[in-house]
């Protein structure tokens, strides 16, 4: 009974994580410029990865693997926002300007 409930929660977490990854990929492919794509992907990636890893940790149970999975979750939760911020800052200092509606009007 308890294992059934744990498996159900894990399945929900994994499916939700896949949904977040899908949203991030759609944002990456559809949004107009670098900053918008960064905005879509960093958040969706972190949440999706943490959800899927938490679900996998629940499935594998309280063994030594789970310690590694917790380490991975904290690694991703710390490094991924840092990398996103570094890239956005680098793009700004390199002179990339954010997209506005006027950009679309000029190109037409």
């Amino acid at each position, binding site marked *: 009974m308890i294992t059934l409930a744990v498996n159900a929660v894990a399945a929900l977490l994994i499916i939700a994580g896949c949904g977040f990854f899908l949203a991030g990929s759609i944002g990456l492919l559809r949004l107009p410029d670098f900053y918008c794509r960064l905005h879509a992907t960093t958040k969706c990636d972190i949440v999706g990865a943490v959800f899927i890893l938490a679900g996998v940790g629940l499935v594998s149970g309280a063994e030594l*693997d789970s310690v590694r999975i917790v380490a991975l979750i904290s690694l991703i939760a710390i490094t991924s926002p840092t990398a996103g911020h570094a890239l956005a800052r680098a793009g700004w200092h390199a002179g990339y300007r954010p997209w506005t509606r006027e950009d679309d009007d000029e190109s037409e």
Partner: protein
Amino acid sequence: MSGLLWGALLFLLVNALACLTRVVLGPTLPDRIVAANVIGTKTVVVLVLLGVVLDQVIWLDVALVYGLLSFTISLVVGRLIETGRLPRLEKAP
């Protein structure tokens, strides 16, 4: 349960392929780097899923090292975009 894990794995691989088109098409260098970063995160998750499905704990260590390397790559390429050259180690006094 194993079926769901395989399904999530295949889904993530297809997703990564979709992101690969942005690496190829991306008009500017930062676009490509963002897409590569996303693929790196997906790869970490895929490695963990493979480790659990195939019951091989060593894949989790591979995923840890891969995550750290992908983070380092993002920082170094960010510096390359910002200054136009790669960071150098400080010379010892």
